[in-house]
């Protein structure tokens, strides 16, 4: 059967939407409509009050939180999320999954669910939401275009050999989760891994370089966390999963004379 024919016969559909970060402030009209119009609504948010809000907005929403468990590999949880979502799509339901922030940023399950649903011939879309990065630019007054901006998951920097450019902003997400994916890591695993992370940053930044610990406000009555600390104090500060580390550039980028000259040459109008 061709994929086009198959698409015509499949009635289930999937919309992955983002509810933004701050309760009530960031929900787009499109995301609200998807949530209200769906047959089945799954919710994957990281704040219990936001989950309650969505439960009130739409009774019988299904939280994906019970799929997590202490000591259970995250990858298995995410696969089960995808299976739970697709089971309803395959049953012919109009399914909406509401994720916090932007559904496609630092999240494996929504991308996977949309890809599998499309491959099986169902209509599947991802609708953007306001992410924590968007809140960060606004709260810290950072323009990512000013010097350039690099985004990394903390574990990517810790486990893989990445090159950091200290002339641009560096934004490190989920620093509070380093060590959480290492089997048999004890309760002190996070602090020890943060110390390792600080050691990694020290390769590119001076130890007294001031970085910002940032956390966006989840509730409209809260203020964001904006705390400036020196790099050498990183392991001594309480860093949790929603916290983000922001490194301002440490020096100016040098002009690339060779490319400048070549650019001038190719841009010059020919006689």
């Amino acid at each position, binding site marked *: 059967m061709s994929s086009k024919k198959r698409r015509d016969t499949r009635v289930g559909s999937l919309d992955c939407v983002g509810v933004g970060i701050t309760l009530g402030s960031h929900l787009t009209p499109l995301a609200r409509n998807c949530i209200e119009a769906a047959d*089945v609504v799954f919710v994957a948010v990281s704040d219990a009050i936001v989950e309650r809000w969505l439960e009130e907005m739409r009774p019988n929403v299904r*939280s994906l939180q*019970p799929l997590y468990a202490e000591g*259970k*590999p995250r990858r298995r949880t995410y696969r089960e999320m995808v299976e739970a979502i697709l089971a309803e799509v395959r049953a012919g339901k109009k399914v909406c999954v509401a994720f916090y922030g932007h559904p496609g940023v630092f*999240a494996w399950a929504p991308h996977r669910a949309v890809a599998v649903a499309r491959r099986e011939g169902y209509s599947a879309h991802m609708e953007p939401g306001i992410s924590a990065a968007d809140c960060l630019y606004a709260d810290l007054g950072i323009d990512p275009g000013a010097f350039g901006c690099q985004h990394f998951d903390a574990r990517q920097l810790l486990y*893989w050999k990445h090159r950091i450019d200290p002339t641009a902003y560096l934004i490190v997400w989920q620093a509070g989760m380093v060590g959480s994916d290492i089997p048999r890591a004890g309760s002190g695993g996070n602090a020890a891994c943060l110390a390792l992370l600080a050691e990694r940053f020290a390769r590119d930044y001076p130890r007294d370089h001031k970085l910002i610990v940032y956390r966006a406000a*989840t509730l409209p*009555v809260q203020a964001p966390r904006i705390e400036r600390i020196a790099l050498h104090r990183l392991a001594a500060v309480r860093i949790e999963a929603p916290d983000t580390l922001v490194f301002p550039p440490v020096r100016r980028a040098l002009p690339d004379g060779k490319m400048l000259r070549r650019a001038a040459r190719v841009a010059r109008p020919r006689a």
Partner: protein
Amino acid sequence: MIGRVRLRALARGDLALFRALYCDAETMRHIGRPFSHADAAASLRATLVASREAAGPFFCTIIERGNDRAVGLCSIRPTADPRCPELGIMMVRTARGRGLAREALGVLIDAAFRTLPITGVSVQYRCANAAMARVCDGLGFSPARMSQSGARAKTYVRMLRRPRLQMYFEQPAKRKPMSKIIEFLEQAGRDAALRHATREQLLRGMSRVNIGKTLQDAVLNAGSAGLAALIDARETMYCQNQSKTPPKAPAKAPPKKAPPKKKAPAKKAPAKQPARKAPKRKR
């Protein structure tokens, strides 16, 4: 308050319900292979016999009060721990998504705690059964943990201890202030004037919608976690990530052995040339 469902003991006349549940592939997707009609009839007979035994399971038919229709089955069966029986529930397709399963299980739990010498109840369900997870969340069951039993490898086990039940029955009373709070927070999030309001402005806003002093303090001082505890929201929340598993560290290369020093070949004493024989002189 009269609920929307009531329970009665399973009877021979429930064959149609039994078939609607056990012969339906969609209903059985988290349980096992669907039964044939003949198998369902045999299973009903066996269940009724087992229910009459003192140590056997007890099955109840769930009746929706509005139309007096049988909409599902729930059961309580003994386990290895006699003080903690296991509960089960199945609902027909048309009765799902309306909170009836949670109500029915609540009625069964209430009856079990009132009449049986037990300290708690447990449930087991397949990990992918998000609907059952939601029902258990609503009733205050403990967080899920993987079943250790080999036969039910991909199942969660959750427990409900007797005192937690009181919280469940207190929920309707708690819901009122919670709704007000959520409504207020949503309003504050949408209202540009309230979005960056001062503490006094927020307090005035909450007083206007009759949010009590305790909750006002919780909203403004305790932060998200304290407020969550007050409105009986979920205690532990996990957040997603990219789920990249740490790479395996490349095996440490064995330290290179220094190449063995080439011994300077011992200077061999030049072999003694055989003494040349002096050519014979021609004579």
